[in-house]
């Protein structure tokens, strides 16, 4: 039960994402009917699954939602902006309901009511019914209200008057013969025939016959198998579309055949109806119904000529039933251009819909298994390095056969590693998709108008990175809207569009993923930032700071620009926390800001947390790894470039710049005496906020791909050390945490702590 529930909620997440992205496309002006269908299907699937788990609140709301979407799908409701806004709000409410159903907690009843009422108003359902949804009104009662409502309208309006009303208010009942045989997959996907059959019988008079002939005995029975099949004879005033839509989300999980019925209904056609009107009716039906699957209706083959012209399920039925009525002749004789044009797009759309699911096959795999595989591949890489080391030690590495073999092996391990990392890689879409909702909410609270543009959603990055990206991104987008964008009045006064723009984009750049959060607001108010930093004692009042340095002040702990703590940005989380969490992922944050034009926050993150490219160096006979991403350049310093700078500190002169020289051996407590700078190598590194410093090491061994082994998991946190790795010779090497080393050297205070931790 739990695993099924889990699958259901996972699928809900997917459906909700689909729903939201579809709605956003519709909002963006797309009129592709396939998108509307996808949106409808998403809500319908959630409703269906929720029904199977008896999540009634969810079912009830999804049903109201679905009814409105159905109106949109049928072209009866336009997707003008107030409608899409309502739909987007409803999508948010639906997401809340799903979350509550999964995690428990309270739903905001008022929001649900408001949204349900809005929806009901759109679909024309009686509002009263939705206003008190938790009362006696069960979700069954909501069924297909719009159709029922249209009957009186039909009585009042002349038949020729409006096309849609006629199509809608078709009073004739049609009989469909539906044969339905579920595949085991239908059950696995948490669908329930009882639910489907109940919906069917709600459409009209249903005679359900169950074929139990394939039921085996208990020993042979697979409890999770599918043995039952049904034949339903349904007499209904609904169109075939409505019947088909019930089975929409089990499409592919069952054998389904819908045969449009018998002559009985057609004979009921009022005898007094004028031939012209009858022809018109048939034509109208042709425009509003999809053609039935020809194979599903062998009886209709004789009427194929007519179908080609009218493309109408109903006309086809009529043809099959009364092959030589004047209606058909009239239809064939004067096909209207509309009727002739209608069928092809409908068919094309259907074909596209049925092919889509088969193209993108996926399986769900427990993340633990992937991690285990990842770990093993890491071991393989280490093993390969060891093997190559041993061959070198034995003097065999130069032998061409061994060398070729080793090269191929190395290539293979590399490919395997990339393959496994690709399994863990996911498009950032999953995080980006949460942002439109956030933007809507924050915009509503702040009273600003905001448009969010996302780019590069398909950029892939490790799943762990994605998961840990959500919070910092959320916070930065909140900031961009709350602090970055000006109020609509100010924007107008500054000659900008009233609607602010927030751009969220992702791209791959030199083995890292770069995410930009840009707004077109006022830019950082440097004077104010500076004043606040001084006031809070973060900087000296007379400190000389470049613009860039001022901008970076906002990342300091204890800095908050909002003079009143707003309930959006000021939740006790400052930009310093954002920076910390990005750094924990091995990433960097930087800002560029232009007054009056806006600010851009740039996050640069590693694609994976499992491997990194590092420079292997020797310090006091220890082997250390410095991540390549932080190294700007390396140089062999001359003794004359090194200058003492108060106490033990030294600086190195480089191209007329003085950079702090950090003796890694001393920082980590490997030695107490300062190293001879003339004998070592300096690594020029970039740390927090783009500041440069030089790390002093004894020698460089080379560059290598390093498999990261967490030190925190296996031993404990060590200041100045980010993680560890295993080298080709089997020794453990520590990976330097460059930022921490640089920070420690500045304060000087943590020297003893570092030494102590390493000794312990």
């Amino acid at each position, binding site marked *: 039960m739990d695993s099924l529930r889990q699958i259901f909620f996972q699928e809900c997440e997917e459906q909700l994402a689909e729903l939201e992205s579809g709605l956003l496309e519709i909002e963006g002006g797309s009129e592709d009917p396939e998108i509307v269908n996808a949106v409808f299907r998403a809500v319908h699937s959630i409703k269906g699954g929720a029904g199977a788990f008896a999540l009634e609140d969810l079912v009830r709301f999804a049903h109201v939602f679905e009814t409105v979407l159905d109106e949109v799908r049928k072209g009866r409701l336009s997707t003008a902006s107030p409608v899409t806004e309502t739909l987007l709000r409803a999508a948010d409410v639906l997401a809340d309901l799903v979350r509550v159903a999964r995690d428990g907690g309270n739903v905001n009843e008022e929001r649900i009511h408001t949204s349900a009422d809005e929806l009901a108003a759109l679909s024309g359902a009686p509002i009263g019914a939705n206003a008190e949804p938790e009362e006696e009104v069960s979700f069954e009662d909501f069924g297909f209200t719009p159709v029922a409502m249209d009957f009186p309208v039909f009585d009042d309006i002349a038949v020729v008057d409006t096309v849609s009303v006629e199509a809608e208010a078709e009073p004739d009942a049609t009989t469909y013969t539906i044969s339905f045989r579920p595949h085991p997959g239908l059950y696995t996907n948490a669908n329930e025939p009882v639910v489907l059959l109940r919906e069917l019988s709600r459409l009209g008079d249903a005679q359900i016959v169950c074929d139990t002939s394939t039921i085996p005995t208990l020993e042979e029975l697979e409890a*999770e198998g599918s043995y*039952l099949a049904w034949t339903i004879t349904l007499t209904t005033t609904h169109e075939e579309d409505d019947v088909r839509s019930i089975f929409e989300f089990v499409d592919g999980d069952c054998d389904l055949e819908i045969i449009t019925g018998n002559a009985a209904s057609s004979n009921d056609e009022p005898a007094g109806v004028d031939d012209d009107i009858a022809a018109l009716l048939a034509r109208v039906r042709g425009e509003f119904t999809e053609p039935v699957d020809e194979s599903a209706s062998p009886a209709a083959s004789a009427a194929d000529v007519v179908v080609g012209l009218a493309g109408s399920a109903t006309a086809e039925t009529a043809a099959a039933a009364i092959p030589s009525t004047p209606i058909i002749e009239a239809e064939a004789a004067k096909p209207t251009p509309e009727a002739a044009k209608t069928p092809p797009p409908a068919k094309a759309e259907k074909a596209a819909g049925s092919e889509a699911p088969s193209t993108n096959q996926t399986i769900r795999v427990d993340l633990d298994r992937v991690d285990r595989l990842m770990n093993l591949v890491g071991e393989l890489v280490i093993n390969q390095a060891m093997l190559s080391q041993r061959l070198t030690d034995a003097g065999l590495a130069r032998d061409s056969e061994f060398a070729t073999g080793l090269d191929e092996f190395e290539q293979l391990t590399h490919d395997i590693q990339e393959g496994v990392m690709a399994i863990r890689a996911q498009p950032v879409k999953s995080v980006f998709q949460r942002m439109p909702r956030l933007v809507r909410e924050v915009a509503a609270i702040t009273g600003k108008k905001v448009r969010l543009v996302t780019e590069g959603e398909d950029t892939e990055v490790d799943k762990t990175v994605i998961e840990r990206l959500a919070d910092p991104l959320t916070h930065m987008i909140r900031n961009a809207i709350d602090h970055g964008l000006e109020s609509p009045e100010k924007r107008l006064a500054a000659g900008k569009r009233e609607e602010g723009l927030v751009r969220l984009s992702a791209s791959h750049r030199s083995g890292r993923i770069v995410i930009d959060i840009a707004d077109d607001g006022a830019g950082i108010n440097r004077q104010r930032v500076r004043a606040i930093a001084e006031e809070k004692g973060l900087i000296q009042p007379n400190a000389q700071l470049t613009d860039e340095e001022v901008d970076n002040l906002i990342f300091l702990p204890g800095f908050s620009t909002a003079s009143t703590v707003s309930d959006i940005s000021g939740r006790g989380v400052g930009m310093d926390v954002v920076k910390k969490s990005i750094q924990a992922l091995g990433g960097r944050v930087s800002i560029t800001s232009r007054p009056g034009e806006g600010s851009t926050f740039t996050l640069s993150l590693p694609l994976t947390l499992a491997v990194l490219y590092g420079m292997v160096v020797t310090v006091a006979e220890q082997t250390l790894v410095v991540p390549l991403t932080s190294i700007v350049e390396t140089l062999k310093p001359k003794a004359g470039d090194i200058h003492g700078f108060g106490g033990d500190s030294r600086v190195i002169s480089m191209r007329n710049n003085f950079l702090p020289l950090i003796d890694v051996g001393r920082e980590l407590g490997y030695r107490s005496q300062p190293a001879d700078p003339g004998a070592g190598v300096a690594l020029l590194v970039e740390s927090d906020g783009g500041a440069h410093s030089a790390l002093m090491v004894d020698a460089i061994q080379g560059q290598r791909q390093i498999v990261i082994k967490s030190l925190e998991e296996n031993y404990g946190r060590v200041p100045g050390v980010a993680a560890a790795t295993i080298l080709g010779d089997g020794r453990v090497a520590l990976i330097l945490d460059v930022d921490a080393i640089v920070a420690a050297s500045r304060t000087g205070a943590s020297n003893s702590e570092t030494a102590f931790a390493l000794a312990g």
Partner: protein
Amino acid sequence: MSRTGKSSRTGTRRTAKKRLQLPEVLDLTAAAPLAQSFITRRGADLTIDASQVRRVGAQCMQVLLAAATTWKTDGKKLSLEKPTEEFLEGSHLLGLRLEDDLAVGEPV
């Protein structure tokens, strides 16, 4: 349907082993355990108690039907008693005529 009713019935089941109490929810996940409980009760007359059923699913009905077939093959008697309205509605929706396969008692 009351709490007391349920506990007393559980008690009956413990003493008279030829009864099988159907769970409240006969959904997808209930099918496998249900099949198992039928298998362990094979070879004797059995009365199925449907008085607690609130929700019916097709897969559990498959199990019931398979049990009916099996009991018939074994030459034993399988009957169902006290079906709830929900149970009857479910089997009706599924187009099943359970009374063809087993003796169905009066609804509760």
